């Protein structure tokens, strides 16, 4: 059992993509489940709080320690098992394997059978364990769902030392708590990913709209088309939105960001863009694309306002375009932090059930304008799960931004929505939305702790109050 005392060279392990920085006394990098178990037992004996870490790409600070011990799982990267099934395959991996490693591995193992895992978040250094713990989603979650829907089982090393393989089918409730439990109760030491057949054909399309109104109309229309084709052989896999301010960031960084260098100039001054992926047999995909083309013309797009590529490798160019949004918004926060380090990310990761897209967009846009704080909006337009990122430029605006975020959360709760979605509550959202977070999450945290973590070393709370 190797435990290292905290020193300067481990600084990178006390912060994540939330840009929060914490502190810890010691760290470990277990390479096996046995080693992780030994370390947990040691920490439980002394009631030392433990923070679990994967790839540290989390944006809510879930992996940021606040004292105690850091257990970083990035050295548990083995592929444990690969097994073909009737309609795909199951791939069992350790939690530290990253998106980048696993994508390669899956192509190698399942290339001939043309299989894939549809959950990958756009952060390529995120780990399998982190994805499961956060119940993350990829850009194609509109069709394929979240991590929970695409993992067959997880291996769970509880804080009290018990070990258990939890199947999605047989122990639904517990599985649903662990996947999405943000590391409460125990460590995910292996995951069985459900690989499914790749679509015969894949088209990636971007529509650039001239006004935000037209963009919202396009999204509403695209949702209707997607709904109508939901059960068809060719379907909409991704329906994502990027607003004008995000497009300005992309434009400004096109030449300097490696990922964006393969993109041509964006059409002049779009007020919003919609990224879509269509999967299925070629003929069906083409027909679906035809319907979207008509819709885009009705919303004022000419052919110059659209980009269309087909094939997995080619589509990557446009996936990078969509993926750049999160990175650039984070980079913008970094710039602001340089002038005032106390400012943190203020992101609404909320879903207002059944609400028209136009209304969600208008709420964010108008109220941010009233307090005069720039707001960058992007995310899953298909399901209405948008991220609205407020960028307050000074302490005063930061306070106003926090209040605005809380007012959105109150409205979201009043409508029966979810105030913390795929990014999890971590530490940042917990602080910002204290008292306004989903009850279901509190229940998950409390149940996992009560059942599996009597010493409370992995305890997660939904409030900053003791």
């Amino acid at each position: 059992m190797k435990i290292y005392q905290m020193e300067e060279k481990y600084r990178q392990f006390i912060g994540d993509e939330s840009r929060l920085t914490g502190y810890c006394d010691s760290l470990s990098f277990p390479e096996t489940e046995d080693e992780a178990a030994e370390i947990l037992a040691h920490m439980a004996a002394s009631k030392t709080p433990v923070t679990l870490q994967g790839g540290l790409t989390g944006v809510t600070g879930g992996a940021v320690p606040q004292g105690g011990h850091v257990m970083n799982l990035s050295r548990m990267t083995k592929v444990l098992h690969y097994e073909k099934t009737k309609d795909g395959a199951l791939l069992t991996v350790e939690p530290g394997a990253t998106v980048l490693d696993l994508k390669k591995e899956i192509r190698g193992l399942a290339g001939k059978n043309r299989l894939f895992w549809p959950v990958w978040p756009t952060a390529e250094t995120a780990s399998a364990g982190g994805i499961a713990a956060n119940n993350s989603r990829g850009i194609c979650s509109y069709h394929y769902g979240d991590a929970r829907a695409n993992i067959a089982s997880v291996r769970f090393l509880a804080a009290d030392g018990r070990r258990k393989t939890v199947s999605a089918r047989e122990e639904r409730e517990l599985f649903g708590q662990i996947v999405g439990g943000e590391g409460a109760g125990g460590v995910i030491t292996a995951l069985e990913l459900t690989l499914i057949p790749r679509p015969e054909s894949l088209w990636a399309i971007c529509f650039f709209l001239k006004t935000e109104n037209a963009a919202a109309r396009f999204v509403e229309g695209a949702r209707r088309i997607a709904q109508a084709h939901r059960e068809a052989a060719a379907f909409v896999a991704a329906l994502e939105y990027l607003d004008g301010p995000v497009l300005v960031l992309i434009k400004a960084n096109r030449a300097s960001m490696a990922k964006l260098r393969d993109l041509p100039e964006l059409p002049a001054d779009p007020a919003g863009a919609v990224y879509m992926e269509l999967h299925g047999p070629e003929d069906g995909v083409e027909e679906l694309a035809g319907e979207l083309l008509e819709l885009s013309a009705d919303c004022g797009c000419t052919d110059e306002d659209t980009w269309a590529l087909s094939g997995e490798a080619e589509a990557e160019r446009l996936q990078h375009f969509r993926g750049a949004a999160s990175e650039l918004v984070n980079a913008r926060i970094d710039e602001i932090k340089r002038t005032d380090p106390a400012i943190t990310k203020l992101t609404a990761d909320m879903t207002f059930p059944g609400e028209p897209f136009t209304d969600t967009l208008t709420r964010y846009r108008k109220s941010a304008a009233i307090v005069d704080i720039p707001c960058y909006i992007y995310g899953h337009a298909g399901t209405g799960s948008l991220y609205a990122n407020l960028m307050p430029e000074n302490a005063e605006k930061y306070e106003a931004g926090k209040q605005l975020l809380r007012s959105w959360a109150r409205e979201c709760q009043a409508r029966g929505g979810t105030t913390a979605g795929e990014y999890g509550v971590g530490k940042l959202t917990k602080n910002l939305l204290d008292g306004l977070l989903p009850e279901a999450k509190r229940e998950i945290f409390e149940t996992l702790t009560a059942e599996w973590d009597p010493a409370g070393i992995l305890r997660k709370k939904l409030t900053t109050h003791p």
Partner: protein
Amino acid sequence: MMLQIAVCMKQVPALNEGKMDEGMGTLIRKDIPPVINVYDLTALETALRLKEEYGGKVTVFSMGPESAESLLREAFAMGADRSVLLTGPEFAGADAVATAYALSQAITARGPFDLILCGRQTTDGDTAQVGGAIAQFMEIPSIYWVSRIHAVTPASCTVTALTAKGHASCRIDFPCLLTVERELAVPRIPGLGAKIAAKKRQPEILTLQELPDRDSSHYGRPGSGTRVIKIFSPREPAPAAAVSMKGKEAAAYILEWLDEQTEGGIR
């Protein structure tokens, strides 16, 4: 001005999907989906921009199996006027020289062209020899690694090209061949309408029977002298000392030097 531009394009295995055969230094192509060679996309983009600026027609050539039609449809979607697929069992297994010969024949069959554009290399073979060899077979001048095209007249163009040590600017008369660097132009992405319309267009199919040289032994495997043992980047030779001599003295020096290199094989 009506420039007639030919662009050579190829489908290659998607690099990021492939694994390398460590012994041979070659890509294991099995089960890897094809993509358009990225350098060729720059060649097509360059041709389209020249057409838009100076007028003319762009014809895309590809040698490959029928599945390469999808590449040519993508070229239509981007704005190519014509596309020609050189296909048939006779062309299978071609090395760089046999590929260049076949393409030179196809271009001649559908020509004449003022300008032939190729990507600097393909990402599967990486030999960067096909462009130059096409020019050689067609007996036209060529410039490699073009990073800018400055001016075009009905008779010539002025370009900047990378050299081993920097850049060189030169004027080259038509007909000529240029191989282009990716920095020359970011390839456009077709609009959705153009993409759907391109799906309905058929590339022209060209077979051995329609080429000026119909001798199948000049193409494909029979026409290829290369046998790949291993692919590696050559080491840069150590700089040699310069000597200055004249006439017989120089000839004797060269002969002796060659003799040393070939261990007496020259004499």
